[in-house]
C-alpha cells in the first residue's frame, strides 16, 4: 500500500478520530497527539489494513483504547489533564454572557458524562453512526448502547432544564 492510497483511506475519518479523542481527552493538543499516534500505528500496520473490512471502525476502536489508556495513566499518576484551550473566565460582561451561553453549557455537561456515554453520544449524535457501527467500536450489544445513549441524552436534558429553571448558577 502506497502512501497516497493510505491517505486516501485514512483522511476521510481522520477528523472523526480527532473529535473522538478531543471528547475524551478534552485538550486540543492531546487529541492531536492521539490522532497522530493512531495514524502512525495504522501506517506501520499498513500491510494488514486491506485485511480489515472496516478500517474506520478499527481506527475508532484504536483511538478509543488509546484515549482510555491515556486517561487511566493520568489518573494513576494523580495528574490532571493539562490543556491550553482554557476559556478565559475574567472577561467582559459581554463575553461572559456569551460564555454562559447554553451551547457551551451543553458542552460542559457532556464533559461530565462517564467515558462510555461520552463515546456513544459522540459517535451517535455527532458522527451519526448507526448502532451496528457503534457496537463495533465500543464492543457492546446494541441494546446496551441504546440504554446508555438514552441515559446520556436524558442527563443532558435534565441538566439543561435545571439550568433553565434556576438560571445562571
Amino acid at each position, binding site marked *: 500500500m502506497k502512501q497516497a492510497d493510505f491517505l486516501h483511506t485514512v483522511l476521510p475519518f481522520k477528523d472523526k478520530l480527532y*473529535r473522538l479523542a478531543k471528547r475524551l481527552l478534552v485538550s486540543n493538543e492531546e487529541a492531536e497527539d492521539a490522532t497522530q499516534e493512531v495514524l502512525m500505528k495504522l501506517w506501520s500496520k499498513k500491510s494488514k489494513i486491506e485485511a480489515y473490512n472496516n478500517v474506520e471502525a478499527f481506527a475508532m476502536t484504536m483511538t478509543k483504547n488509546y484515549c482510555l489508556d491515556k486517561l487511566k495513566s493520568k489518573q494513576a499518576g494523580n495528574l490532571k489533564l493539562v490543556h491550553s484551550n482554557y476559556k478565559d473566565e475574567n472577561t467582559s460582561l459581554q463575553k461572559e454572557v456569551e460564555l454562559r451561553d447554553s451551547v457551551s453549557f*451543553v458542552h460542559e455537561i457532556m464533559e461530565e458524562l462517564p467515558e462510555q456515554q461520552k463515546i456513544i453520544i459522540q459517535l451517535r449524535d455527532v458522527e451519526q453512526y448507526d448502532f451496528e457501527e457503534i457496537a463495533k467500536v465500543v464492543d457492546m450489544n446494541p441494546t446496551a448502547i*441504546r440504554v446508555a445513549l438514552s441515559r446520556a441524552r436524558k442527563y443532558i436534558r435534565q441538566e439543561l432544564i435545571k439550568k433553565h429553571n434556576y438560571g445562571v448558577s
Partner: protein
Amino acid sequence: MELANIENLLEKYFEATTTVQEEQELQAYFSQDNVAPHLQEYQPMFQCFTNLKAETSTRNVPLQPRKNYLKWISVAAVFVLTTSLFINEWNKQRQAEEAFEYFKTTMALVSQSFNSGASHINYLTQFEETTNKIFKTENN
C-alpha cells in the same frame, strides 16, 4: 415539518429509538431559526452537536515511511559479533601455536645442553673403570 411530528421524534429521541435519519430531521429542525418556543430549550443541545461536528484536526501527520532500521542494525550487529568472535578464536589459536613453537625451541635448547652435560658424565664411567682396576673387590 409539523410540530407534532417533531415532538414525537423528540420523545423517541430521548428513548434512543430514533433512526439516524430521524435524528438528522431533528437536527435540521433545530438548526433553523423558527423553533417553537416550548422546544427552544432543546436547541442548544443540537446546536452543540452541530458545532462539535465542525471541529477538525489541523495537524498534518508526518507519514515518512519509517524504515525498519532496527532490523538492519540487528543484522549488522550479528555480523560484527560473529566476525569478532571468529577473529578472537583465530588469534587464540595463533597465540597457542606461537607459544608451542617457543616452548619447542626452549625444550630443544634444554635437551641440547642436557645432552652435552650428559656426555661429560661419560668420563665418570672412565673413572669407575680405572678404580676397579686398582681396587679389586673380593667378589670379583
